[in-house]
């Protein structure tokens, strides 16, 4: 794995962990749209951004 993969891979791993942890630990009693629904949406968007950076230079020299 190169440096970029290590950094963004770690970011994604943390996001995945938060995807389990935040809703089940902190948002159990938040029965509103700005609870689990919002947090999972935000985490998904961060994952898209992380993938964008991971794949940014693929095949550039082709």
């Amino acid at each position, binding site marked *: *794995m*190169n440096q*970029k*993969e290590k950094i*963004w*891979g770690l970011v*994604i791993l943390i*996001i*995945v962990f938060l*995807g*389990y942890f935040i*809703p*089940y630990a902190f*948002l*159990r*009693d*938040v*029965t*509103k*749209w700005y*609870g*689990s*629904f919002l947090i*999972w*949406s935000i*985490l*998904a*968007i961060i*994952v*898209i951004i*992380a*993938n*964008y950076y*991971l*794949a*940014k*230079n*693929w*095949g*550039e*020299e*082709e």
Partner: protein
Amino acid sequence: MSTTLVWSSISVYVVIAIIIAYLSRSGDQKSMAGYFLGERKLNGFVSALSYSATTYSAFMLVGLAGLTYNGGVGGFGFEIIYFMGVSLVAIFGPRFWLVGKKYGYVTPSEMLGDRYQSKWVAIVTAISSCLFLIPYSAVQLTGIGYLLAGVTDGAISFTTGVVIATVLAIVFSYIAGIRSVAWTDSLQSLLMITTSTLVVIVIIVHLGGIDGFFDAIEAKDPQALAVPGNGFFNFWTFLGLTIPWFFFSISNPQVSQRLFMPASLKSMRHMLLGFLVFGFIYTIVSVVWGFSASVLFPDLENADLATPTLLSSEVVPPVLGVIVMVGIMAAAISTIDSILLTLSSLFSRDVYRNVTDQADDSKQLMVGKLVIPVIAVLAFLFAKLELDLIAVLSVAASSGLIVVVPAIIGSFFWKRGTAPGAISSVVLSSLLVIWIESTDGLLLGLKSGIWGLLTATLLFIVVSLVTEAPKQKAEEFTQYVRQNMRSSRS
């Protein structure tokens, strides 16, 4: 929804899809790589739409909507964890692509067999995939059966729906192999994302806008917006459902085989990012459908009927409803025909070629084509059993496929991995998953997917450490990947 309208729409879809499939007949149809991989020349746009259509099937708009109907926002979280797992493509995608091009691999099992220098690795992983993917194909057929029966109030029977889907999947697979599948996939992806989003807009407007939508959920069942909510998504269930799906993009061969297909790494980048954007929208759409059905029709006996009920209700205009219905049907068929192609390539390339001495490329292709209808009929028979909730059955299939993950990761990142390690991890963990699934689906409170992954990892590591690794191949394989990863990405 009128039965005539449904039949006419299905007919229009079949005609258009067959025309597109025929138009896609170009290039080499007579080699394994031509027929099953489109000569590794798929462009980024088609790759992205086709990857999306293969991954997102009846499961999403029928199964995930049903899961949300039953368990609330946990259904959304479940799908988002899967979605995060697609990031594995960012790590493994270029690696699969590089070695596929260098060594000419047609299937992921073939890659494992070569990397671990054992034809038995290829045979065992191929058989394991066939075993678990047939129920997954059956899930798609079941989805179509429920859908057509649901929207026509039983005028089109469950069996008729399943028969139509089986026949169409065989036809599309035959016309031009992966090319026809990829192009018909692209057609249906565009149709699906547009029409299903339109339905969401119609429903939300009907419920009084976004505020009205969430207010209606809170008024009906506020717990639906939190986990564990009504208890359906308790943490261990959530974990057990999500773990196998997190690894879906590398554990499911019909998906990982697509990592061999893009014309370039640039095409693969478009495939990955296009899929993520598509997937995010599609996930929200499916979940909104499930929530809306739970608000509008709270007393359904079977949660898998949430989508058909919604589409045939007065809320959705009939023409829009029927287009979406055809789109869902097309989505399910596109998943089945991708699976049919992958399974037939696994059988011909990894099982047939390895057990016979004189199986050249054209013979393998012939066997692959002969196997397609056999697999389709097996899936059909499985679908007729009408087992369990669609979503839960899909997860059970993924639990079985997860056992190959340690061997795949090991092939790229652990030179010490061995063939006995890979074989024992796949065989014994598959048996364990089957045993757990055939009892009550839990062992010591944990679902089969978690056990599958844990035992496969442990076995792969321990058995590899006490057996001899194919040092030369491991060195050559990993070195090639390392060098090319360095030169192709900054």
